[in-house]
């Protein structure tokens, strides 16, 4: 792979595609380590050389890398080709890529040798945040220099991508405030600020991903008015408000000032409007697409729509403090996290990858590949449903056993172990389904890069 990348560097192929290549490889790696960490739940001795302390961060960091790399790759590709906005610099994305790859390899090495020092999700030693930060500055600089050339009304996804980039930089920095004793020493402040940053950080990657979804939808439907409509902008501002102020539903039980919680509760409930709008639009969005041409992308977008509904409903329910008190700290949170990152983000980003691959292969995807992708699509989604439900059941059971039955941790784990077994098996099924989707994509990219 490295060889290929170097060769490609010489031939100056489309950089967006190279990001997508690395993204897909990260996804395979991430899901591989996810399967290992799930197996370690039911077989504690499984793969002693990469124990759970290492496999979990390997999993989470690689799948987060997938989300970022594939969003970024799409943006670099779409701006010049579809938005009539040639990149301000074609060199910066290459530097961006090499920094990302280089830092990524160091981070993975740190995990494998057990060198931590960071916090949940960014467990690597904090010094490695510097190159990540720099790479985003390059990305942001290039992005804004590029899009500010646009005259006339912006489609909403240009706003969303810009917001995502800006807030990534802000919240990523905020998540390192703990380096200052003022923030670190007082645990209430520390946890509150950490989750304030994380909540908005997830919000900012969602801006990148949902922007991509709107872009792909617009192209698949062949209707450019949607992305400029008043409603799209209202939804964007509502989503943005939630990004900024909704995060404290993660920390209802942390003893910070009560107004922080009440405010987050109120803001979280405004998402009901988004849910309502999605259900309202549901039927319309199904009919009029240019389906045949972009059939694979279309399928993934439809799947993401269903997962948006399910996960948003779940998110709303667990944001009510009276319910959160039972569900917080249980696998329901994991169901929420992975349900959204897989069902929504990954489905959208795969739609974008296939849109892009359709472009570079001039829609010459062989029939045989389409069949494998279609089966992979169904396998992934069916197992994801089982995966999601088993986490919900495990979490609900745990919540009840803690609060009502007041059982000990060992008793609880014993009680929920059947659900965790189902979770693990369906996770492995999902891994297989994803491989069936990803391999043909990798093959197409390989052909493109080598020619």
């Amino acid at each position, binding site marked *: 792979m490295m060889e290929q990348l170097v060769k490609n560097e010489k031939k100056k192929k489309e950089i967006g595609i190279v990001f997508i290549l690395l993204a897909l490889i990260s996804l395979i790696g991430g899901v591989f380590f996810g399967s290992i960490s799930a197996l370690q739940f039911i077989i504690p001795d499984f793969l002693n050389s990469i124990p759970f302390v290492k496999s979990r961060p390997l999993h989470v960091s690689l799948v987060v890398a997938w989300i970022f790399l594939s969003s970024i790759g799409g943006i670099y590709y779409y701006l010049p080709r579809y938005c009539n906005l040639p990149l301000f610099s074609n060199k910066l994305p290459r530097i961006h890529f090499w920094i990302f790859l280089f830092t990524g390899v160091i981070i993975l090495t740190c995990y494998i040798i057990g060198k931590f020092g960071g916090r*949940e999700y960014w467990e690597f030693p904090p010094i490695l945040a510097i190159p990540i930060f720099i790479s985003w500055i390059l990305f942001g600089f290039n992005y804004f220099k590029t899009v500010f050339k646009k005259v006339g009304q912006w489609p909403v996804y240009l706003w969303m991508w810009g917001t995502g980039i800006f807030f990534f930089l802000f919240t990523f920095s905020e998540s390192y405030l703990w380096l200052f004793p003022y*923030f670190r020493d007082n645990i209430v402040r520390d946890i509150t600020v950490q989750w304030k940053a994380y909540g908005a950080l997830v919000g900012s990657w969602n801006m990148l991903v949902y922007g991509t979804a709107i872009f792909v939808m617009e192209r698949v439907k062949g209707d450019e008015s949607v992305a400029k409509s008043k409603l799209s902008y209202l939804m964007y501002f509502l989503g943005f408000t939630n990004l900024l102020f909704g995060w404290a539903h993660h920390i209802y039980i942390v003893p910070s000032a009560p107004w922080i919680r009440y405010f987050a509760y109120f803001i979280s409930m405004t998402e009901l409007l988004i849910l309502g709008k999605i259900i309202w639009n549901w039927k319309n969005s199904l009919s009029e697409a240019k389906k045949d041409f972009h059939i694979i992308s279309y399928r993934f977008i439809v799947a993401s729509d269903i997962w948006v509904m399910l996960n948003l409903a779940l998110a709303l329910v667990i944001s009510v403090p009276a319910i959160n008190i039972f569900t917080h700290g249980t696998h329901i949170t994991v169901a929420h996290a992975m349900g959204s990152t897989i069902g929504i983000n990954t489905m959208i980003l795969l739609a974008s990858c296939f849109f892009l691959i359709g472009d570079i292969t001039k829609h010459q995807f062989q029939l045989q590949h389409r069949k494998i992708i279609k089966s992979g699509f169904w396998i992934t989604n069916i197992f994801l449903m089982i995966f999601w439900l088993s986490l919900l059941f495990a979490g609900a059971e745990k919540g009840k056993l803690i609060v009502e039955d007041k059982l000990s941790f060992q008793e609880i784990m014993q009680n929920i172990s059947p659900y965790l077994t189902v979770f693990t098996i369906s996770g492995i099924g999902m891994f297989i389904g994803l491989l069936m989707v990803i391999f043909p994509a990798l093959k197409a990219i390989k052909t493109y890069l080598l020619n």
Partner: protein
Amino acid sequence: MNSNSKRLIFGGLILSFFVYSYFVYTSGTDNDKGVHLINEQSKRGKLLFQNYNCTACHQIYGLGGYMGPDITNVISAKNKGPVYAKAFLQGGTPRMPNFHLNEKEIDELIAYLTYIDKTGISPIIDFKINYDGTVGQK
């Protein structure tokens, strides 16, 4: 919606966000019931907690991985306490790795856990639910 009103809404939201962040960083998080237990030992314990990635398996205030239990209140829980917690750190268990910590490190981790314990309660088991869906602690 014209461009100016978009910019106005955007600017307004960002401005409120920065004001709000200021209050979260200060008065919103000033209350620390365990403040008298913060000392050099507990501070080092916190960094050890990060260096050994205890969060991968443990939750504090319900946040963290789910392989192991929430340890916010392990120091004051019935039938548990510092000696009990020490035993886990000294030997590990079939599920929890033995980190081969030295005495000093163990004491620092315990000092950190002792501090956390005083700051609040997790999971909350005694509570009452209000009509508006909020929760009050008993």
